[in-house]
Each structure stands twice: as C-alpha cells, then as structure tokens.
C-alpha cells in the first residue's frame, strides 16, 4: 500500500521531552519519493514541480515528471515547498565546544604549535545540544575543525544524525589546518585615545619577519615529511609526518586560516612548492587576490560574511560583497558561519546576504552546499540533489536563505528522515504549555 506522509511539521508535537530522547533515524531501505517540490539542485539548477526518487539512502532519479510506483513506497508530497541539498557548515567547532566560556567543555585547541597529528573527529560529541539547532535550519553536515596557534590538526566532515563520532564520520581527517601568523605589526594603544590623537608607535619586533620564519619552519617540516614518505622503511615512526601523508597524494587538503593579502600570497607557496591543494579559510581580503587564487586553484571558505569591514575606509558592505567578487573571478568558494553566539545556525542567512549583494540565489546556495562539498572532497557523495549522491535533503516552506521565509519542515540524511526536534523547540513547547499559548505557526 502506498503510504503518504503529509509533511506538516506542526504534527511533531513532542511532549516536553529532553533532547536526549531524540533518536538518530534508522537506515533507509527501499524506495522513497519526494514530490511536487521546487527543487534547488545545488548546482545552479532549479526544477519546478520536481520529484526525487531515493533508494537505500541514495538519490536514484531527479526530475520533473518521474513516475511513482503504486507500490509499498514512502511518498512525501511537498507541494508549495522548496527542497534543497543538505547544507554543509564548512568550518566549525561543532561538537568540540559546548559552552565557550566553560573550559571543561572546550575540546578544540590542543597545546603546542605543531599538532598535525591531532584529530578533531575523536572529540566530536554527537550529543552536543548545538547540533540539532543547526539541523532545524537545514545544516546537515559540518566540517569539524581544530583550532590552534599554528598547525592545529586535522578536520573531518560529519553528518549530523549519529549515535557517535564513528557513525557520524563522513570524510575522515581530510583537512590539515594551519593558522597563519598575522604578518602584521601589533597594535599599541594608549588608554582612552580619542580619534586621531596620539600617534602610532613602531613595533618592537618585525612581525612579518617573525611570521615568515615560522612559516619557513613549516615548510622544512613538509620537506622532511615528503622525504620520510619517499623512504620505504623508517628508523622510527614519526606520527606528525604520518599525519600529513595525504597532503602529498591529494588525499588531504591544506586549510590555511588567513585573511590578509600577504598571508594569502605566502600561502601560495604550499601550492607552488609542494603541490598541495590549498583552501583559504577566513579570506576577508580574498577579493583583492581573486584572480591569483583562481590561477593557483586555491579555494576559499569565507568564514563570516556577517562581519564589519576590515578598515574604516572600506565599503561598508564589503564583507557582504566579497562572495560575489570571488564568484566573478571563478574562484571555488564556500560560505561559513562561525559566529560564537549562534554557533552556525545562521549559515543560510550569511549566504542570503551574499545573494542580496551580488550572488544569484542559486550561487549563494551552492556556496553552502555543492561548493562546500567540492572543497571538502565529498562532492561525490553530497552537496547537490543529483543522481548517485546520498539523499541529504532539506525541505523548507519558503526561501531557505531568507529568515523571513525559511521554515525547515523536513530533513533527510542518507535518506533517513531525521527528527527535527531540538532543545529550543522543546523548551518552547514546555513554556507554551506553561502559559497555555497556542502557536500560530509550527516549528
């Protein structure tokens, strides 16, 4: 018999349970259809009145007029709704940090400057209360990234509906993260300086020189690592060399956290000298070197479009416009949201702002779906609603990138229809009961 699920999220009237009772969804078996939807594929295309055929967690067919068998299949009628690929948060400490001011809940930053062997994945806590709040806005995957003062460790991509990190792992240890020295003189302020008062003072040490020396040290490390991997047997095992092996065979990418032009130009060394695939993370000034990034195949993760401009003289909207500049130059880029107060849930709206300032809406969507997947090396599995990929799908009542219309009603990870309950909805429910309020609109 044909089972029809009418997706009205308000039907998820969950009693005041703790989030602890939200179970990861079971593996999807057999056929599943999503029909009558406006499908935003993620690659720029939009299919009106489209249907998605999913089998055993994978997308088998996508199109406007797909036949649906009168079989024992699940069919979700999404009439009037918008369907998107599951959004990907490209840099995040999700699951590593629970409450940022409480030290005991911070597992994102290890001691030391050279930690290529440190793995973010093993600290990823699938029971973090933050995770479900992201799913509620359409984020279904995240790149979990270690922080640090220089070489911080490796990141892994996780899907956000899992019992534990091993189940969550989507792509393991595929990024080595380097936080670039600032290469800028440090500030020196008198107290209470008014505008224009008190001249700047020369720095004590040359930060450019100091930073470059540090980077030279890293390059030596890579040279030795390369030599190490060229030998057939080692006198002893070097865990740090072992950890970066993938960089030399493109199994891993080098994520360079940097913003300024100088930092970026220095980062090109890793492309030129070692042939690494480099991803620039931060990239607030990347619009100034967009063509060079394109030439060197460096991709960019714009960490936080919702930022103030770098300098007072800058275009007031520059951070909003940077994405469009990269798009124009043909640079592969993704948008992230690392706001410490909202923890990534505003990812679609950061993309929406980029759409308001020069990207098309579908380009903005790609920046948080397919482009991110490409950068993370998971585009064969996710990032768009295309045949052969995992059925990572988000359904929204309206435009997902605009908070005015975004209302995620359903989401699927690997075809599994996930429970969109989160801590916030539960607390809302609890207090709506206390005050006997009726929601006019569902979660």
């Amino acid at each position: 018999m044909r089972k029809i699920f009418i997706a009205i999220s308000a039907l998820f009237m969950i009693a005041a349970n703790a989030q602890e009772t939200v179970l990861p969804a079971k593996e999807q078996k057999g056929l599943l259809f999503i029909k009558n939807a406006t499908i935003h594929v993620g690659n720029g295309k939009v299919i009106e009145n489209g249907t998605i055929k999913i089998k055993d967690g994978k997308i088998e067919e996508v199109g406007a007029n797909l036949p649906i068998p009168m079989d024992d299949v699940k069919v979700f009628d999404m009439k009037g709704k918008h369907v998107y690929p599951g959004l990907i948060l490209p840099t995040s400490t999700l699951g590593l940090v629970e409450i940022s001011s409480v030290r005991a809940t911070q597992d994102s930053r290890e001691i030391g400057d050279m930690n290529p062997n440190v793995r973010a994945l093993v600290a990823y806590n699938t029971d973090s209360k933050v995770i479900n709040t992201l799913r509620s806005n359409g984020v279904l995957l995240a790149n979990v990234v270690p922080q640090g003062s220089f070489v911080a460790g490796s990141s892994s991509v996780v899907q956000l509906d899992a019992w534990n990190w091993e189940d969550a792992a989507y792509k393991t240890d595929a990024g080595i993260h380097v936080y670039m020295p600032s290469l800028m003189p440090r500030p020196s302020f008198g107290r209470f300086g008014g505008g224009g008062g008190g001249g700047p003072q020369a720095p004590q040490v040359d930060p450019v020189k100091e930073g470059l020396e540090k980077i030279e040290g890293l390059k030596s490390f890579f040279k030795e690592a390369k030599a190490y991997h060229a030998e057939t047997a080692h006198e002893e095992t070097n865990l740090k060399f072992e950890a970066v092996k993938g960089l030399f065979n493109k199994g891993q990418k080098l994520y360079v956290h940097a913003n300024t032009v100088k930092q970026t130009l220095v980062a090109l060394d890793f492309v030129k000298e070692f042939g690494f695939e480099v991803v620039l993370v931060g990239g607030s000034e990347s619009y100034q070197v967009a063509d060079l990034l394109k030439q060197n195949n460096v991709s960019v993760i714009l960490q936080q479009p919702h930022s103030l401009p770098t300098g007072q003289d800058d275009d007031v909207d520059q951070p909003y416009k940077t994405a469009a500049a990269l798009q124009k130059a043909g640079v592969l880029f993704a948008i992230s949201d690392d706001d410490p107060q909202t923890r990534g849930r505003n990812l679609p709206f950061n993309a929406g702002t980029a759409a308001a300032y020069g990207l098309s809406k579908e380009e903005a969507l790609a920046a948080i779906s397919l482009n991110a997947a490409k950068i993370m090396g998971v585009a064969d599995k996710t990032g768009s609603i295309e045949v052969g990929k995992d059925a990572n799908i988000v359904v929204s009542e309206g435009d997902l990138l605009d908070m005015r219309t975004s209302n995620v009603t359903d989401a699927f990870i690997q075809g599994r229809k996930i429970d969109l309950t989160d801590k916030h909805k539960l607390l809302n429910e609890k207090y709506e009961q206390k005050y006997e309020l009726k929601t006019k609109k569902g979660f």
Partner: protein
Amino acid sequence: MRKLKRLAGAGLLLLLANVSISQPTFPENGVADPRHGHFAFTNATIVKDAGTTITNATMVVKDGKIVAVGSGLKIPAGAVEVDCKGKYIYPSFIDVYADYGIPQPQRTGGGGQFNPSQQPQLETATKGAYGWNQAIKSDAEAYRMFAVDDAKAKPLREAGFGTVLTHIKDGIARGTGAVVSLASEKENLVIIKERASAHYSFSKGTSTQSYPGSMMGMIALLRQTYLDAQWYKNKPAAEGLNLSLKAWNETQDLPQIFEAGDKWNNLRADRIGDEFGVQYIIKAGQNEYQRIKEMKGTNATFILPLNYPQAQDVEDPNDARFVSLQDMKHWEMAPANAAAFEKAGIPFCLTTADLRSVNQFWANLRKAMEYGLSENKVMEALTKTPAITLGIYDKVGSLEAGKLGNFLIANGPLFNEKTIILQNWVQGIKYTVKEDAASVAGTYSLTVTSLSGKETYTLDVKNASAVTMFAKDTLNSKFSFDGKLVKISYAPMTRRQRPVMNPGQMPDSVRRTGGGFPGRGGSGMEQALPVTATRLSGVSNGTEWNGTGTDSLGNPLTWTASLVKAAEAKTDSVKKKDVPALGKIVYPFEPFGWDESQQPKQENILIRNATVWTNEKEGVLQNTDVLIKNGKIAAVGKNLTEATARVIDGTGKHVTAGIIDEHSHIAAASINEGGQSVTSEVRIADNLNPDDINIYRQLSGGVTTSHILHGSANVIGGQTQLIKLRWGANDDDLKLKGWPGQIKFALGENVKRSNFSIPGGNNRYPDTRMGVEQVLIDAFTRAKDYQQDWKEYNTAKEKLIKEKKSTASLLAPRRDLELEALVEILEKKRFITCHSYVQSEINGAMEVANKMGYTVNTFTHILEGYKVADKMKKHGSFASTFSDWWAYKMEVEDAIPYNAAIMQKVGLTVAINSDDAEMARRLNHEAAKIVKYGGVTEEEALKMVTLNPAIMLHVDDKVGSLKVGKDGDVVLWSDHPLSIYAKSLYTIVDGTIYFDRQKDEQLQKEIDMERLRLVRKMNGEKRSGAPTIPAQPSYQIMHTCSDHGHSHGLLVIDADDITNE
C-alpha cells in the same frame, strides 16, 4: 636683596662647579665676591613684546633684572657695555607645560590596571591622611620636589626658553605647579612662583587602584571630588583630616590647568569646569583643528604641543592597505593645528611638551609657521600669553624695566630661516647658545713662519667651521673656531679633489637635521686631509689670531692671521613659503565624513507610492506617500503633494520608521567602569565619541537611534545615553534631548566575574548571585537614607527661611553622585535597563525592586525571560533581547530563539537589540527571526526594532512609528523590510538624509582618490629624504559589553583586551 656674586664673563660658558652664588644665610667658603651683573646692551634691535620693536636701543640689566629699556639711554656708570650692533633682543620664551626638575613619578602597589594578571586593587595604596582615591594627588607640590637640573635646562635654554611652569605629571589631580627659571642656580633663587597653578588630567598615572578604570569614571571622580571638597570646607567630623581635599580647596584660586590632549577630551574637561565654575586652561593634543568651532566654544586658553604624526612608509600597497585615511589625513593636517587656533581667534600658549625631544622644537615650530601660524602669534604664544595666563606678566613675558633679565640675543630677526640664537640670558645670567659664526666670517691674511721662512695665505672664512684657503692655488683645508680657539689644517689639493662644498650651500633638509633649531649647521662634508697636512692651533685675540703648529715635515712653526675685511652681513633671502595644499576637514574626521559644502541638511521629503509600515493602527498601507516636513512626519496618505519637497519614488519599495537599538555600545570613549560594584555616578553622556565609523555603518542598516549602555562589569553600572545617529554632529548634538535618563544594571556571571581569569580568583564583591542581591539591597538602602537626609535638611532649611532665620548653622548633607542617581530611580526620574539572563536572578531583581519601591523598567538580554514572562508582566517590565544567541556562556545555556515570541504572547512589550556593532546594521533581519521562531506577525516583529524600543526608552511620543508629528526618522527599503534581501536606500534622521546608498558609492570613490593622494604624498616625503616609520595598521578600539565574542575584523581590538577594568 639677593646678590648675584658671580656672573659669567662675556664669551665664556658658565661654569657652575667653580663658584656658587652665595646667599645671605649661606656661609661663604672663601672670600666674598659681590657683583651685580650690571650690563648695558647697546645698539640693538629690541623686541620688547610681539607688538613693540625699538631699533638702535639699549637695555640695562642689573641684579638679574631689567633696569631700563629704550633708545637713547645713557649707559649707567658701573655697567659693562655689550655692543649688540646688528643683533636682536627678545624676551626669553615661557613653557607652561613642563616637568623640568621634577622626579619621574614612581609606581607603587600592585593592582590590575597595569598588569591584567593581578587582582584588582580596590583601595588606595597611598599611606597617610589622604583621600580615598590614589589618583587624586591634589596635595602634590612641584616646588617642594623641584631640583635644578642643568642637563634638562640646557636644551630648553638653547631652544629659547627662560622660564617654565613645572609640575608632576602624575594622577588625575596633580597638585600645584611652580614657575621656575632655567638658570642653573640654587633652587632658592630659581623658583619664581612656588604655587602658580593647579593641574588635572584624564590619566591615572601611577595609581594602581582599580577605580576609575574608564574615561567616564575619571570624569565622575573629578565631579565628586569637587563636591566633596566643597562639603569638606565645613570640616565634617565624620571625615577627619583629609589632606587631599584640604589641598584641593587651597589650590582652587590658582590657574587651573587640565591636560586633556584630544579634541573631545578637551570638551569633556571644559564641561567639568563649567559645572563647578572653573575655566580650565586646556593642554591640547594634535587634533583640535578637526573641531575648531567647539574648541572656541570652551572659552579656554589652550596649551598646544608641537608634535606631529610621523610620515609612514606606505610604499608597499599591502602595508598601505591597513593605514586608514583618517591617520593619513591627520598626518597631513596636524601641523596646521596651531594655525587653526590662530585663525579662530582662540588664545593659546605653545609648549615643548610631548615632543620626542626638545631639539625638535624649532623644526616643528617652523613647520607650524609654514602651515600658517604667524610670527606675531608665535611670539605671543611663547611670551605674553603664558605670562598673563599664569599671572606672572609682571615678572616675565616682555622686556620692561622691573622684569627678570630673561632675554635672547639673536643675530637677526628671530624667525628668519638662518637666524641663530646666540645667547639666552636667564635672570641676568648669560648662557651662550651658539657662537656668532657670522662674526668670524671675513677675509684673513695668514702668515706662517717656520724654519724655511714665511709663507702667506689668504683665508676666506665662511663661518665657524668652513674656510677656503689659498695661496696661488686653493688648498685642501679644514677649519674650526669655537669662539676662542682656532684650528686650521691644510695640504695641497690632489687632482681628484674638487672644491669643498660648504654648509652654506647645503640643502635645508640637511642643515636642519642636526637637532632642528637655529645655528646647528652641519659639517663633515670636507675631503679627508692627508696625514702629512700642516696643522695650526691658535687663539683669537679679536681681529688677530696667533698660534703655533707643525708643518708637513713635522717641523714647529708659528703663525698669525689678521682680519683684512669682515664679511658683509647677508640679508636673509629665504622667501616665505606658501602654506602647503591640504585636504579638506570633514565631519566627522573619518571616511564618509562630509566637508562643509556637502553637509547633509534637513529638507522636506516626499516618498511616493510605497508600502508604508506605520506601526500605528492603520497597519501596513499599500501605494502610500509619506511626507516629512521641518524634520517631522507631516503626513501619511495617498496622493500627497508638497511643492518644497524633494520627491523620492517609493514604487515597489517599503517605508518604515527608523530602527532603534535598545542595547548598543558604539560612539563612546569608554563603556565599562568596573572599578567598583556600584558606579551609578558614571555617565556615558560624559564620553560620547561622534567619530565612531559604526555610526555611519549602522545608518546603512536603517538605524536612526541607539541607546548607548554602560557595560555589564558591575551590578549597578553607569547612566546610559540615547543618541540619534546624526553623522558628523558633535558629541552634544548626538544626544536625543528631552528623554528621561536610564541606567544600566547587570546580574549574573559578568558582575561575579565568573569568566575572568584572575589569579587567586575574584576579590571584588559580589562573587555569587546571592551577593548580587545584597549589593542591590544595600545600594537602595543607602539611597533611601540619603534621600531622607536631604528631605530633612530641605524641610529644616525651608522652616528657617520661613521663620526668616539664618540657615548658616544648618549643614547640608554631602552630595553623593552615586546615591543621587539611585534616588532618581526611586523618584521615577531615571529608568533601569538591567542586563540579565537566568530566571533566578530575574526574579531576585524584581523582588528587590518591589521591596525598595522601584520598577525594573527593562530587562535587557533577558534570555530566560520566557521562563518568568508572567512575573515580568506583573512587575511592569519591558524586555529587550537577542533573537537567537545562546551557548556562549553557562548562563545562556537555556536561551532559546522563541524567547521573544513567548514574552510577546504573554503580553510583554519586547524589543530585539544588537549589543554588537555589526549585528546592529541587520536588526531588521533579527526581527524577522521572531516571525520564524515563534510566529509573531510581521508587523509585531518590525515593532520589536522600532516602536517597542521607543516605548521602553520612553520616547515613543517622538520616534518609533510613522505618525504625524513624530520625528522624521524614516527608512526607505529596497524590499520587504524583514527580508534578507532588503537594503536601506535612504536613512533619514530628523528629515535629514544621513545615508543615501547612491551617494555612498560616490563617497567610496572619493575615499579611494583621497587615499591615493595621501599615499603618494607620504611616498613623496620618503623619497625626498624625510624620515619615515614603518606603516602602522590603523587598529580601532571597539567597546563592548564584555559579554560575548564579536566578528569585527582584522583591525578591531576589543577594548577589554587592552584595559583590564
């Protein structure tokens, strides 16, 4: 009468070590040698003061004082005549902002301010019967600390100074200054006026006490100290002896000098003075030209330093990238600061203070003159104005009989490029600055006598270090003359050697680098002489020189030289340079600021055919017009016309009231006064900063009104200020006038300092939410007692007045600014906005309020408001919250984005605020989230950033909706105002368009052009050989709530990271 027993003879430097002045009370070690320093300076051009010059005049000096000045004076018998033909005599300069002879202040105690890893120091570290605050050093007396220091006096004398006002530059109140001369004599004789001034500043100096930790805290401390000092006059028994207040009172009649050092700080200082009837003399900074009208408005006399920003090396575009236009413009214009004062007719003195070295004085003074400062004004600013300002014009500041013998002798008009100061006489004592190089110049006949006979040469002496020597051929020669001793060496010229270039032919830039003041001619460009050169050494006996030497073979010789013809004095041919071309002064002095020709003006504006969100019962109106007239909303309706109005087509667009941010920390010089747990005496209004670029950035996001809050460092924080974003206005004009004030309270983790890393833990009460409640109860208990004391006093006073009895015996209670603000709360004249998170503390705060008889007007942040919304409603509070923040600290663990909607549905008036300079420009989007999370209507959501904050700020009669008669604060949006795709096209405040998206693009282009011009100018300086410093990224300080992280970019430094408190 004092006797000057020893005076330097002409031509010799004073050698103090040999003979010291004897004073009547000091025993003499040897034989008395009484002298009177009696001199007559004849044939001189005497500039008595800036306006009076007499030629061919005589001045008589005796016993350190001027006896007579005039032309045709008879030289008194007993006076030594000094012929000053061709010389100019000027009064020596006065520097009113020195610390000459004062020991360097030493830091004592620990304290958090200088070392963030130390615990705050809550009490003063000063021992003794002094006041409570370590930074009030009103008891300091410069004359008691003063010791003559010839090493420091010498460069000042050489720059032309004879007198300085010196004081210890330490503390907010710094005690008295002393006028001293720069004579290297016994202190007893050098101190001219022991208590000449009282000094204040906005710097804690060596104080290690935590309070005050902010600009507004310093202002509050000064205000309170004025009140306390007044109260102390009646010797209140409860206070005992307070040496700080006693000294404060004793020094109030002196000239009051305030080191403010910045254009806005100057105004802040002046307002303190205005409140207490004090006209400060203001020690300025470099940037007053940016607000010269406001400077004039202070009616103050200013003390102007002459230091300027250095040119930066901006050759590398990637370095130049981070140097702001503001810094480059300031570099260009700072040398015009003094000229701007002159042009505005503001009285001022000049000082050597703030210079990296006194040696820069002349170079920088000349630069100021090049930028338009007149000679007369310089003369005045260095002599008469300081003398009059300090009330010592009877002693110094001009050349008149009876005044001190402090004068300069120069070889020409003082401000001519090539003039040098030859001597600086201080208290009738000669100090040679520079030998008169011109006097040696001339043609000499040199005769050298050796075993091999006589040889004759001609010496063409250019100055004290340059000579051309020839017999038949020009010789390679080297020469030096120090006023007495002559050295000459010479050898035949080799073929490769060319004629020596002498310093007179060197470019100015080279000549002037040797220290910067007149007479420092460079040398050292001579060709090297061979070791076999003939060397002569001798002594000048006037126009004839005699000496001995060694010839090229090592044989001894003797020599004489006689003046054949003195060089003719050359007239100074340096032309007056044109004032350099400078960029425009813009308001504010920031990118996107406007110059006077572009000033945004109030205009009548008609927006036609838009979707209009009225926030009134009419709701959202389609195809509707909005008319703004005379700064107010004049009409909302269809088919409006107004002949005088600028018409804007609103088709397809949306009009809303301007956005109001209930919780902002922009546009202030300081935000947190965390030095104590109760600081209701501090006021944001005292330290507004109209130069904050975020004013403009927020206008671009449709914000028109911002509530600038004190931070959350303490339970009872400071008084807040509501401003309108009038970009370019001064600090006072930013204020939204006519609103009842508010005050910031805070609860929870921040006031407990839970997230501070203080070694040994927090030592400031409270450390728990239990303690927070007690702080509140205690503060209001004290406030009530205070209220009662005044009530009783006022009743008693009225009674006496009614009975026509004297009120003299009735002592007023001490005015306490902290408690006064709390009494205002009790009297419903001031409203609370209370930073709060968790339900227990919210409940607690309301219970204290109920008990004490006040209402918590607004709970701000209030992320657990949804848990106690019914209680808040009952208490009568408003709620101002974030849309979707959480999990950045423990107390926001239960924060939910449905909070605003729940509170609204329970019946509270709810606002969405930013607390963040970035998010403030997207508040319409933040409001939209309340539709998404919790499903309030779009109109209700928009009100959360417009009308509702107006209501909680008690200004909904003025702003917050499009109602006829309200302020013309309007935004025209490109799209549905809650949509992520909406942009403000026009942001209008009081009918003035302060943000215009099209004009913004134009401004951006102008900024780029102006940057380019200035980068090229700096590069030009560098290439012309001027010294530069490495490019300095223009970091900006951002003040925040100290509550959470921000995304503010590469160049922004959180104020908390640089100031611990």
